[in-house]
């Protein structure tokens, strides 16, 4: 069997009635796996949000007992009398970031949308390896359970930051956290298998299972970015796994890879971590960039501005992402010459990012913009990503980073790209593809309300963090008032915290909308957004095997408002009408 893989024969048994367990629990259907990922990762997102709220409580109202009598629930090792202890604060920060990055955003990006969109958008009936796909999902709750368990063990959860810098993380002697740190390491090692098995599936599926006519340059940008993300996962995660194993050995059997007592090198951990870590942050945003491209093109009824350069920019960002990791280590005692080469590569990333940003704006230009919830989130993504990206330029400049490193400026930067960017991108993605997943529309009014309050509260919460950083406030500090020069910043911190509480609370609207619409939402129909992608050519929600017949692709994904056509969209699989005449056909572009 060479290139000819007949679509539809790989697991035809799925077309039969499978019973509850195999339909909802141990399903091998990519759409069901996507939904499973969606529910679990939203729960982890909510958990991460709760932890963030507790962080903000401490920073906004230091030393005051937690509200809602939380103090009675939390044990005395965490918050006696409701007052958060410093060691618990460190665990909160660490676990907040860990849950958000590894258990919420990564599965939301790759797990949910990788699974949902890749086969649908390329016209395949499922993933290349459905069983491995199922495995990839089931590893996640296992890893999550291990991570959650660490809250309840003696010494509490890991508290060395999500970066777990050695030697702080190598021994409980330094933090008082023994088992918690070990569970953190084990959980992430386990979770790594989920990412790798997932990525392996995505890469193979995109390479080998594209429908006839789906040439590389007709692939929608969401799939493109998921494909590139899968590569990043595939090559970055094993590096982390290796590092985690070495750290675990340092913790448990007393090796000295990163421990200076035995001549180990703490800086080597930082190199390993960031060699993974920087590709990781692009893992967390590239898919969102893809969703945003789709939503903006669709809702402004225009082709994506510069589709080819968008693809090139995705690949360029991913590629450059491998050679910039040192920018996290400018102040770590790194070789200053090496630092300079990292600075050069880092600023260059602004170039493909600029291409993407301006192309999104170019897509809106002369469009016919429909203000639906997905579009509002997508445009917010662009607006906020620009802020986060530009603050990255300060940090990329090594001398300025001397001052800004490890201050709230970093916290502002990372939340602008990760919350303003990735999370809003995810909201855009969920609201846009929700009808495909569940067959019903989300409620528009609730959606707009959620968006509006979120957008305002979000900015009020995170923008002032830049100013805190410029005033010199360090990150990861339990109580800034310990420092006299930071005491004047307390009112800003309190204001930020209040805004965060609004931001977190308003997410309830999203949760309500999400569950309510599943039952009561307006029926969606196959193609509620008048979209071109193949995912809209099958029923909502798609049945097993997705397409009744293998779709054949005739054109690129963004033929909106094509001149001379009555409809303002032109599905990729719509067969050309012969009498239309050659001139009206979008021709193959060079490179196809």
């Amino acid at each position, binding site marked *: 069997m*060479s290139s000819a893989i007949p679509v539809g024969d790989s697991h035809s048994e799925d077309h039969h009635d499978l019973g509850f367990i195999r339909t909802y629990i141990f399903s091998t259907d990519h759409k069901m796996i996507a939904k499973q990922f969606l529910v679990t990762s939203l729960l982890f997102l909510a958990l991460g949000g709760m932890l963030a709220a507790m962080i903000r409580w401490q920073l906004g109202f230091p030393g005051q007992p937690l509200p809602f009598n939380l103090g009675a629930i939390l044990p005395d090792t965490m918050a006696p009398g409701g007052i958060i202890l410093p060691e618990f604060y460190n665990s909160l920060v660490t676990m907040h970031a860990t849950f958000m990055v590894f258990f919420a955003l990564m599965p939301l990006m790759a797990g949910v949308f990788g699974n949902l969109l890749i086969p649908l958008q390329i016209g395949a009936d499922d993933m290349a390896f459905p069983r491995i796909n199922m495995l990839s999902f089931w590893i996640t709750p296992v890893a999550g359970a291990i991570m959650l368990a660490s809250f309840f063990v003696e010494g509490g959860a890991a508290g060395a930051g999500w970066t777990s810098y050695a030697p702080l993380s190598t021994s409980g002697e330094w933090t008082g956290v023994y088992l918690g740190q070990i569970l953190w390491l084990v959980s992430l090692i386990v979770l790594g298998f989920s990412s790798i098995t997932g990525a392996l599936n995505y890469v193979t599926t995109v390479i080998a299972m594209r429908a006839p006519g789906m040439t590389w340059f007709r692939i929608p940008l969401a799939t493109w970015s998921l494909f590139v993300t899968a590569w990043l996962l595939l*090559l970055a995660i094993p*590096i982390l796994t290796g590092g985690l194993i070495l750290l675990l050995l340092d913790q448990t059997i007393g090796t000295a890879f990163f421990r200076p007592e035995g001549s180990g*090198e703490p800086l080597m951990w930082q190199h390993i971590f960031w060699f993974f870590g920087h590709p990781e942050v692009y893992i967390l945003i590239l898919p969102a960039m893809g969703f945003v491209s789709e939503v903006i093109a669709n809702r402004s009824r225009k082709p994506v501005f510069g589709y080819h350069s968008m693809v090139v920019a995705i690949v360029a960002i991913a590629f450059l992402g491998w*050679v910039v990791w040192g920018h996290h280590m400018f102040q770590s005692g*790194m*070789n200053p010459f*090496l630092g300079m080469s990292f600075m050069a590569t880092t600023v260059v990333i602004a170039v493909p990012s600029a291409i993407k940003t301006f192309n999104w704006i170019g897509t809106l230009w002369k469009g016919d913009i429909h203000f639906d919830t997905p579009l509002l989130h997508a445009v917010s993504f662009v607006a906020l990503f620009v802020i986060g990206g530009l603050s990255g330029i300060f940090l990329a400049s090594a001398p300025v980073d001397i001052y800004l490193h490890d201050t709230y400026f970093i916290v502002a930067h990372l939340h602008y790209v990760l919350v303003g960017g990735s999370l809003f991108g995810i909201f855009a993605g969920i609201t846009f593809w929700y009808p495909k997943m569940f067959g019903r529309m989300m409620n528009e009014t609730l959606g707009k309300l959620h968006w509006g309050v979120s957008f305002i509260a979000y900015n009020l919460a995170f923008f002032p963090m830049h100013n805190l950083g410029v005033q010199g406030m360090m990150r990861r500090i339990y109580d800034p008032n310990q420092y006299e020069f930071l005491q004047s910043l307390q009112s800003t911190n309190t204001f930020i915290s209040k805004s965060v509480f609004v931001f977190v609370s308003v997410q309830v609207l999203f949760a309500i909308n999400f569950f309510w619409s599943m039952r009561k939402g307006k029926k969606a129909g196959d193609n509620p957004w008048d979209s071109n992608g193949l995912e809209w050519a099958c029923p909502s929600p798609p049945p097993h095997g997705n397409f009744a017949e293998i779709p054949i692709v005739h054109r690129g994904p963004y033929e909106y408002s094509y001149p001379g056509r009555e409809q303002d969209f032109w599905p990729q699989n719509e067969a050309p009408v012969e009498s239309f005449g050659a001139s009206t056909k979008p021709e193959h572009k060079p490179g196809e």
Partner: protein
Amino acid sequence: MKNSENGTSDNRMNFLGWKVDIYIGIWVILLLLTLGEVILAFLPFPKMALALGLIAMAVYKAALVGWYYMHLRYEPRNLWILAICPLPLAFILVLAVMTEFGWLVG
């Protein structure tokens, strides 16, 4: 279908004038190289030159395994391009971190 894909037609190679099964031929080369390495390692060469030489031999052996035993030779070119794509990354990581310690030690 398989046969045409993997091109079993040229499954013989010229080895010192003999026509031998290609896999056996490669096997002999691998063994000789390994033997050579073990002997070389104990000869009094300058340490750095020796290390580089041995690594070159090891890489060559690894390449032989990939090329013949893993059939990269018979696969479409795209596949072996794909197969070598992590190598530059591995190289960059190790080299960059080494310069770091070169600086510290020196």
